[in-house]
């Protein structure tokens, strides 16, 4: 009798060996691990290959696994990853043929689903593993004598058991790692923080979590799918564990320009230089962004290694080298289809005079739209001085907190997840909800207004200072300044009304290229014509790493919003400014607010969202208390009417009109977000918290979005139930403890489930 472990081992051992007898003809032979460079594409492809069970039983148990498995999931993850582990070998041998492999698996499936041996098959296998041609069908005759004990309950093969090598660079102090002096930093044009220069040989890769400033002194390296050439510019990289971590690779792409552009290297380094390879500087970067993890606790410690990640430091703090991928750390990988599409964008001749290109990115949720759009924008920034980014994703915006559509003009590439680069948009409109579901036409109008602004002001650069457009002389690559391309990222709601809205946006944008991220049901990697006839690049969807699913979309929204409220915007910050520092020392409830005289500073209060038209004027002040509001500039109002300094006690109704529509997007702009932390009893004064006090915004718009619960708590206490000036576990608008325990029924908001199985579904 075999033990569970032994049985499993035996089976794994036999796995690669006897594929031939049971596989149908077209199956490619498994090969040894593919060369490193290619794993990027192949792994993600194999991950997205869905299980396509065809027998009734398999279908029920694998595809109907309830949602809770995703949410709770340490063990459920093994389902996907085992499949990936088993299939990778096959896919690696020929990544082009994975479509045929799926078919292959389906075809051969009936062969092993005969009911006679249904029980002799280990019952574990069906729900977890897609059929892999290289795996022996387990119906050998000896197993029929003794009904085989199922080998294990939990299949292994979590990512940690098949780790990818992410860092091959071996840091050796004073051989390929040099500490830079303050003087040397200055001569490289860097600020004074501790820094190290790394001499990378062509085969070296380097992956890390943490925050750092990166500057390429010589050669070029690729980072998040973008190539950085030697130049005077340094960039900031944010690599939390909650999103795929960067893998720095020496890029073979060393044009003539970059070769002679390398800068004055510190002399000490010259000895260890080789002809190929690259020299980069990693510098400590202290922004305070780590503190956000203490506020939104689902992200706690996301910039620091946990003990079992096996990370090492790299002579400067805040940067932890990741040797191999693990359960909590997954690398950013550029799928081959993305690479092809991006290379094609690079290869297209730049349009100088006429209208610059517009790129449209669409796809279902969690398919990697944001990552692709970001990479695309970064790539474009190596050819264009500026890139415009139109974000139509209300739920997870790239540069602003959620709930608004924004047009942002970028000048520097961005490396990191959205919450690490809140940026002042060129123009934005507040929708007030994480989905356009409740106000689709206002949403479309807002996007149309932004596109109008883009065409009028930005497209051919009629607003930005041309003098400042001269690239620094040390950068030899000339970037186009008089045309600004547009990248449009859309929302993930890709069914029903959502699909309809996306199609309408596409018509408004009239893109020159469309990138459609799709989970591979159809042949991919090819350029097809979509319904409107514009060429669409169909790209592989890349779902976020399994561990990232622990954080929900709501968690990410909360993080983005808290990032915004704790960000430090300088007074003279202009559109395009990206936040460099965060202050998380004080919870919001400790921060001294701004006091606003309503008659002097507020001309309108507008509530939008489902049911907002039912708020009567008497209740308007109640609604405003604790609300998250947008500060909106409107061109059509006359400004606040009242003068300040009137009698303090006289009641003063809010300038609220029941059922008023949201501000017209063609005549307004959302300038900032604020939290109304209190309203005075007479509603003459309100206390506001905002990182950007903006003049000219006299309209307050409250939508459906709320301040996340994290923003109402004091994160500096460990238990979170103590607030200043309130009893323990007792504060306005908050309720601790479970209502159900007291026998209260219906104390929570209604929830819906769409994955319930009915009788006979099994």
């Amino acid at each position, binding site marked *: 009798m075999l033990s569970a472990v032994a049985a*499993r081992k035996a089976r794994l051992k036999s796995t690669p060996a006897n594929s031939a007898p049971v596989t149908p003809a077209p199956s490619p032979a498994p090969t040894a691990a593919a060369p490193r460079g290619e794993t990027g594409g192949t792994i993600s492809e194999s991950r997205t290959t869905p299980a396509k069970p065809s027998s009734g039983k398999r279908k029920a148990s694998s595809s109907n696994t309830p949602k809770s498995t995703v949410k709770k999931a340490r063990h459920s993850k*093994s389902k996907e990853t085992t499949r990936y582990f088993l299939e990778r070998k096959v896919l690696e041998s020929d990544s082009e043929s994975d479509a045929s492999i799926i078919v292959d698996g389906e075809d051969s499936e009936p062969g092993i689903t005969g009911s006679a041996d249904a029980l002799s098959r280990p019952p574990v296998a069906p729900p977890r593993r897609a059929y892999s041609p290289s795996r022996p069908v387990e119906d050998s005759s000896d197993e029929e004598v003794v009904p085989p004990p199922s080998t294990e309950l939990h299949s292994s093969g979590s990512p940690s058991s098949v780790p990818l090598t992410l860092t091959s660079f071996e840091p050796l102090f004073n051989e390929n790692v040099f500490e830079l002096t303050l003087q040397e930093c200055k001569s490289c044009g860097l600020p004074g923080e501790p820094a190290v220069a790394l001499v990378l040989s062509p085969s070296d890769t380097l992956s890390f979590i943490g925050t750092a400033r990166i500057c390429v002194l010589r050669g070029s390296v690729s980072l998040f799918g973008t190539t950085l050439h030697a130049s005077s510019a340094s960039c900031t990289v944010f690599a939390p564990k909650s999103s795929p971590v960067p893998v720095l690779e020496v890029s073979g792409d060393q044009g003539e320009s970059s070769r002679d552009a390398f800068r004055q290297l510190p002399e000490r380094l010259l000895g260890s230089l080789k002809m190929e390879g690259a020299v980069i500087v990693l510098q400590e970067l202290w922004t305070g962004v780590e503190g956000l993890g203490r506020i939104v606790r689902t992200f706690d410690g996301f910039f620091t290694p946990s003990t079992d990640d096996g990370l090492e430091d790299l002579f400067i703090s805040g940067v932890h080298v990741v040797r191999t991928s693990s359960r909590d750390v997954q690398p950013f990988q550029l799928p081959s289809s993305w690479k092809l599409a991006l290379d094609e964008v690079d290869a297209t001749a730049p349009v100088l005079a006429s209208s610059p290109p517009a790129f449209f990115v669409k796809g279902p949720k969690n398919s990697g739209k944001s990552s692709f759009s970001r990479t695309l924008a970064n790539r474009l920034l190596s050819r264009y001085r500026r890139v415009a980014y139109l974000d139509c994703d209300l739920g997870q915006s790239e540069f602003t907190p959620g709930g608004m559509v924004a047009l942002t003009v970028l000048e520097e590439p961005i490396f990191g997840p959205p919450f690490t680069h809140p940026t002042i948009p060129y123009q934005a409109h507040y929708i007030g909800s994480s989905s356009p579901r409740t106000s689709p036409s206002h949403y479309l109008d807002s996007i149309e207004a932004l596109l109008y602004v883009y065409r009028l002001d930005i497209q051919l650069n009629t607003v930005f200072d041309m003098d400042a457009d001269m690239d620094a002389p040390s950068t030899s690559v000339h970037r186009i300044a008089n045309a600004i391309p547009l990248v449009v990222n859309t929302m993930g709601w890709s069914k029903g009304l959502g699909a309809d809205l996306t199609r309408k946006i596409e018509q408004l944008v009239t893109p020159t290229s469309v990138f459609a991220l799709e989970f591979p049901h159809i042949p991919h990697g090819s350029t097809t014509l979509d319904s409107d006839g514009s060429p669409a690049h169909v790209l592989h969807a890349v779902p976020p790493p399994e561990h990232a699913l622990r954080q929900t979309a709501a968690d990410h929204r909360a993080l983005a919003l808290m990032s915004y409220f704790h960000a430090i915007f300088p007074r003279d910050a202009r559109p395009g400014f990206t936040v460099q520092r965060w202050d998380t020392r004080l919870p919001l409830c400790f921060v001294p607010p701004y006091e606003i005289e309503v008659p002097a500073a507020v001309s309108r209060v507008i509530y939008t969202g489902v049911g907002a038209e039912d708020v009567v004027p008497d209740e308007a002040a109640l609604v405003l208390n604790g609300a998250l509001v947008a500060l909106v500039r409107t061109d059509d109002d006359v400004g606040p009417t009242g003068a300040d300094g009137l009698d303090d006690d006289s009641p003063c109704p809010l300038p609220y009109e029941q059922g008023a529509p949201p501000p017209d997007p063609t005549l307004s702009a959302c300038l900032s977000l604020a939290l109304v932390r209190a309203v005075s009893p007479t509603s003459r004064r309100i206390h506001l918290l905002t990182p950007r006090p903006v003049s000219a915004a006299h309209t307050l718009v409250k939508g459906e979005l709320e301040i996340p619960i994290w923003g109402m708590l004091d994160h500096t206490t460990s238990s979170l139930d103590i607030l*200043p*000036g309130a009893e323990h576990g007792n504060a306005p608008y908050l309720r601790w403890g479970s209502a159900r325990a007291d026998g209260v029924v219906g104390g929570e908001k209604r*929830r819906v489930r769409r994955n319930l199985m009915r009788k006979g579904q099994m």
Partner: protein
Amino acid sequence: MRLPQRTPWASLQELDQLCSWVYADPADSSAKSLAVQRLSAWRVITALPHALESLSSLLVAVLEDESRSPSTPALSLRQSYAAAIIRLINGFVDPLQVGVYARSIASIAAQLGLPSWLVELRHAATHEDLPSLELLRDAARESLDWLLHNYFLPLLNPASAQSHIPAPLRPLAPLLAQYKHLAKVVSRDTSLTSRYQPDIDRTLRDIERWIAEAAVAAHSTDDVERTAFSLDRLTDELLHRGALVPLSRKKRVIPSGQVLLPAPLLAIWAPLLTHIQTHHASFGTALVTRAIARLLSSSSEDGQEKGSEHERASYDLCVAGWVMWLVGADAALREEAFVRLAGGLRPGQEDEDRSFRTAHALLAALSTSDHRLVSASNAIIVVGKDPQSATPAWEDRHMAVMEARLQSVLGNDAEAGESGTQIQEEARKMFDGRLPRGWRLVGSESAWKPCPIGVYLPA
């Protein structure tokens, strides 16, 4: 760490006021319309609890009814009553569909204590003829009543409210016995598989349904907690003698002294366990945790079944066998099991108490094939053997170290206290004099001090 819930009301007094507007005088229309206005405002503040959402729609219908002139068509009134009642029941029942398979609305409503005729009315209003105005009025009244007793009173006055008595869970043992019987038959003669498979499927579905029912019975609003509760009940049942551990001592383990389960036993139970695992990801962990708790508890399984030491040892061995099987090759689960087990075993206990022998054997078995765990388990054993060597002697200088640490912690606190004014100064510097008209930054000299969001302190 438990997060609070966001509520639309600042304090329970506000909810109390709303309750009195609705229920104090049933004939007072103006009070009811005040309540509707308040509820509309609350809905914009944050998502309403379902009870209040239902209350709002019921009140709107009732108000419409009270102000209706006889000439207007009653159809719209009937529709608004019907919609209110349909949504009320759906909203209460749907969140409790916690299982994989849908349960009947009537059975969940019964567990909640919703009157069954309301459920029938829901069905009629949805799929059949729209009920009469009279019936709908009665239903609305009954619903309002039900909300008072099941939402407002327990929330406003937790102590005095009648405690909600959950319907007792139906026993699981017969289902398990039925499953065992079927699985045994099939495992002995595989040719019977196709004949018995429908029965087995039905039993599996029944067990799944039981899990869903148990989850509803849990006193929690949190799905994760609910599932945990029901899985704990389930694992308890599974660990009773006669389920995962057969009654017959001979069938329990392979008499090799090793932690291995006999094949027939595995063949019977493995399909069930894997089935549950596919639907409930946390099941494996829950079962391992419970099983280890069993091993570590010094008393016998349950009171009346106090057996001999042999009986106990054999039971333990079988449970340990299941733990080994469950962890399989899952490194994370293995580690967790190891930590739980190691945590429960006091160093040196082995010598004192022979009843933990199995636990120690399991610890050793778990740590094979993982060098980190091996070293950890060695450490435990070594510490157990020689407690003196592991505990360093107390010295006075340790006190000094602790003192220094305390100082540094307190020092940090002082810094944090300062930062408040510091930030204020920074902000002042940044925006002073440039603030929009009508704006001013509340300064440190003002009376304002930190307070929860939503509290107005004049500055």
